[in-house]
Structure formats: C-alpha cells, structure tokens
C-alpha cells in the first residue's frame, strides 16, 4: 500500500481543518462562522477516529470468538494476525479515541448553542449579524457620543 493511500485519511483531515478554519475566519457572518467552527471541530474527530481504526477490526463491543459473528470475523483474517492483535480471538478497533471524540462532539454542540445564542443577541442589539456592520455601528456610536459630549461643552 502506498504512502498516499495509507495516509489518505490524514489528507482529508488537513483539507477539512483548513476549510473549516477558512470559513470561520474569512466570513463576517456570525452564523456562518459557527458553521465553519463546527466543521473545524469535527475534523479533529476524523483525525482521532482514523488513528483508532484497526485493520480487520470490529466495533469494541465484546463478542465471543466462538460465536457465529466471532467466527465470521476471524475467518476473513490471518490466524497469526488475530493471535497477535486480537483480544481473546477477536480483533477490535481501538475504543479510546471513540470515547474522546464522543466528548469532543458534546463540547462542539455546547459551543454551537452558546455561540448562536450570543449571535441572536447580537442581532437584537445591532440589527445585523455581519461583523463589518457591527464594527461600523460601534464606531458610529462612539463618534456620536463624542459629538454629543463636545456639543454639550460648547453650550
């Protein structure tokens, strides 16, 4: 197997991560930014899960090697391979990255919810969710406040 095929998943991780980050930083729309951030976060999931895949393995739910399912799995594999990398005669994929990414997904949705809630409040306060228009509104407000203050002094 060539280097490219054995590392194809990492290529996808790189593309997704760069794409997610680019969406997050390039757009001024707060909602779109949250979408980009969600893609960015899931790309880490692709990395971890790819690391945890074991060739010929099955989901980490214990099955008996002698059961029908167990035999069906190991019949496709080299016995030496099963003996070396299997646990009690069955090869499993690594459960640890699964647990970590489960946590990461939860963190992702939490961030999304809070971020969107703030975006909704931004819309209510500014009437827009575009970063450029928000900054312009802030500057206009500052300028107006200054004018009012200097006008007050003039009186």
């Amino acid at each position: 197997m060539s280097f490219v095929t054995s590392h194809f998943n990492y290529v996808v991780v790189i593309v997704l991560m760069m794409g997610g980050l680019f969406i997050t930083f390039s757009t001024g729309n707060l909602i779109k930014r949250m979408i980009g951030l969600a893609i960015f976060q899931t790309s880490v999931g692709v990395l971890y899960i790819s690391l945890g895949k074991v060739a010929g393995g099955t989901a980490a739910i214990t099955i008996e090697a002698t059961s029908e399912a167990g035999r069906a799995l190991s019949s496709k594999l080299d016995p030496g391979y099963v003996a070396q990398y299997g646990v009690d005669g069955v090869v499993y994929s690594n459960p640890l990255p699964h647990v970590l990414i489960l946590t990461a997904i939860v963190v992702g949705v939490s961030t999304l919810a809070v971020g969107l809630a703030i975006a909704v409040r931004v819309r209510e306060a500014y009437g827009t969710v575009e970063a450029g228009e928000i900054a312009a509104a802030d500057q206009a407000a500052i300028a107006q406040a200054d004018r009012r203050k200097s006008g007050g002094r003039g009186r």
Partner: protein
Amino acid sequence: MSFFADLYAAPPALLAHAAVLLVIGPLMAAAAAALAPNARWAWMIAVGGSVFAFWMALGVAGEVARQGVVTYAMGGFAPPRGITFRIDALGAMFALLISAIAVAASLFSGHSLDGEIRPGKRSLFQAGFLLCQAGLLGMSATGDAFNAFVFLEVSSIGTYALIAAGSGRDRRALPAAFNYLIMGTVGATLFVTGVGFLYAATGTLNMADMAQRLATLDDNRAVQAGFAFIVVGLGIKAAMFPLHGWLPGAYAHAPSLMAVFLSATATKAAIYLIVRFAYTVFDPGAAFVAHFMDWIVAPLAGTAIIVCSLQAMFQTELRRMLAYSSVAQVGYILLGVAMGTAAGLTGGLLHLFNHALMKAALFMAVGAMALSVKAVKLTDFSGAARSAPWTMAAFGVASFSLMGVPLTAGFLSKWRLVEAAIGVEWWWAVAVIAVSSLLALVYVGRMLEVMVFRSAVAGGDAIKEAPIGVLIPLWMLAMASVWFGVDASIPEGLARASAAAVLGVR
C-alpha cells in the same frame, strides 16, 4: 513552601481527597447555585463553594510541601488506564492563586451584579462563575492531557455567555464575547489536535507516562508539530501576542465580576498548561522545544510588552487600558517562561502571581467605582479620589504595583525577571523591561492624573464610595500586593518550588 507544610488545614480523611474535592466542590456548588431560589442564596453558595475550594487548595499545598507530589487516581485505576490528578508545587501554586482570587471575586459579586444582571438571572450567573472556577482548578490539577482539554472547555463555555451578559451595561460585550468564543474554541481545538498527535506517537494520554515515551521521540514530526499546536492553541487562550485580539474587548465589556476573575486567572491557567507541557511533558532537552521558546515565544513576548504598553497609553476607556496592560504583562510572564532557566521561570511565575493580585484589585476598584455611576471612559472617572477616597486608594496601591514602584510586589517580580535575563545574557530583554516600565509609568500616570487631580465633570454624577462588602475584598487584594512586595517569602517560595518541580522533574 514550609509555610504550607506547617499549616494544619483539614482532618486527614478530608485531606486524602482534597485534590479532587478542590474541583468537585465548586462544581457541585455550581449545580446548587443554579437550583438556588434567589440571588441571595446563590451568592452565599458561590462564596461557600469558593471558600471550600480555597480550603482544599491550602490542604493540597500542605500535602505537596510535605510529600512533593500529590497524586489521586480517579476511579481507583492506575495511571495509564484511568485519569489521574497529579499536583506538584506548580499545580498547588495555581490552585491556591485561582481559589484565593475566586474568594475575593465571589465576595465582590455580592454587590457588583446589582447594576449589571437582572435579578432573575443572577443565580445562573453565579453558577457560571463557579463552573469557570471549577474548570480552571481542574486544569491546574489534572495529570491527563485530554482531561485538561475537558476542563479548558468547562472553564470556557459558560464564560462566553457570562462575558456577553455584560451587554446590560454596554452592547459591545456581545460581539466581544462572540469573538472570544471563536478564538477560544479555535485555540482549544488546536490544543486537542496537538494532544491527538501526541497520542498517535505515544499511545497514552497520561502526562507523566507521555513524558517518559516522548523522551525518545524527539525526531518524530508529529510530536514536533504537536508541540506547536499545543503552544499556539494555549497561546490563544493565554492572549499570547499576536493572538491576543479577543482579550481587550472581552475584559473591557464583561461584567465587572468576570473582568476581575478572568483577568487574574483565565490567561494564567492557560500559561500554566503551556509551562506544564513545554517543560514536563515534552523533552526539555529537545532542540525543537528550546528553539521554539528562544526564537518564537521570547521575541513575541518582548514585542507584546512594548506594543501593548504603547497601545494601553492611547486608550480612552479605563478598562480597555487595563486590558492592554494585561496583554503586556502576559508578555513579561512568557518572557520568564521562555528563558527556560530556574531563575527565569521563578521570575515569570512570581510576576504571574503578583499580576493576578494587582489586576484583580484594579478591575475590582474600577468595577466598584462604576457601581454608582455609568463610567466607561477614563475621563468619566475624574475626581474619583475626592468622592471615593478608599476605593481610589486601593486602586492607587495596585497601580503602583503595576508600575513596579519599589516596596510593591510588582517591583520585586520585575526585578527577578531582570536578574534572570542578565543570567541568560538576554540584554535585549533587560532593555525591553526597562523601556516598558517607563511606558507603564506613562499610562498609569495618565490614569492617576485624571482620577486624582482632575475635578469631576460638571453636571455628571459624582462617583460614590464603594460599600463595605466591596472594600473588604478590594483591600485584601491591595494589601496583598504591598505585603508580598515587602515579605515575599510565600509567593517566592511557591515560585521557586514550582520552578524546581518543573525543571527537575526528570
């Protein structure tokens, strides 16, 4: 550290679990605060949770002083399988700092929320504050790389909304909080990517175990990139120049409770993790660590000190000024950390400790003055010295410490940094510290000039003296800045022990 060894903190049955109770205490208090029937109860729960955490932190510090390292296996599983808390002198120092500031901040919150948060939402606010505290304490206690990410998020997620809640006073809190959320999440995600690379190379998540395996993996490119990801990811959280863009807005518009607490602890906890990873997880002898510190972190820290001090000079809003000053102070701390010597690390950590105290005091004083009057701009505070002398005096003491006036804590830590810079012959760093002290003189002088010598704006409401419930924590922090400038045995002992624990771990 001997101070803590002799301290009788708690009964042994409690001390055995102090490491975990330190985190679980505020965490359960947060849930309880969310259940509280009204704001008063929630405040009492917040104070209780913070005091409990401080008590447990004292207990842990005592254990660390006696044994060197406290380890606590969650679920009773030995390290590579289970999650372990591993607190050494460095962790104990941060646990003490964070929980002490939290006690002061929670006392302050009894009054500060009045004008900022609607009564119906105050109990939620207190719950969020306690969660943030639990997350930061967890970061300083954990010995597991992924668990550090989880606590980083525990401390962050609620915080974003808490900062945005400052919109009651100023709507700019909303975009500032959103910006912080984006940057913070990108930082945390970069961090967890780095941890993923380390996991790919070592197969473990336990930091001590990881360190052992990384010692032979200096040439692994995934490990090297992992280091960059971890430092940059945490650097965003720590407001490392030039990744500090989120900080001024977030600190300037947050509710004053969050400004006090975050400015003193949040960036500090991220710096803690940088130190933890750079010097105890990665092989400190590895060329890529030393190069990254010498050629990227140190010059950026120096730039931060100068540029952000200059930016602070030109701000028109008081809290924004203090926020830029915070970024500059992070530069000092990282400068010390980047030196990689015991003296440098001691100086950096000591400055971190002192800066936490003085910045908390400064933000608290500003918050206290803004309790009665809606004051944002520097000129809004003119005449404060006459109408609110006690608050103003505390502000003055803390700002002297910020400037580095002799006999204050800020002077001592800057002096230690200069000594350390001379020790590694970084003459440019000495020059940077000298120049920036002058700049600090200018911007602090500007603040004090307006507040002390100018009379209040005609027609505006005069700033009123803060209530006694605010003056107590405020003066606790201000007096600490003076006390630790005169007798620095406690913070300096902690910083020295931390540096020794970090650099002598192998």
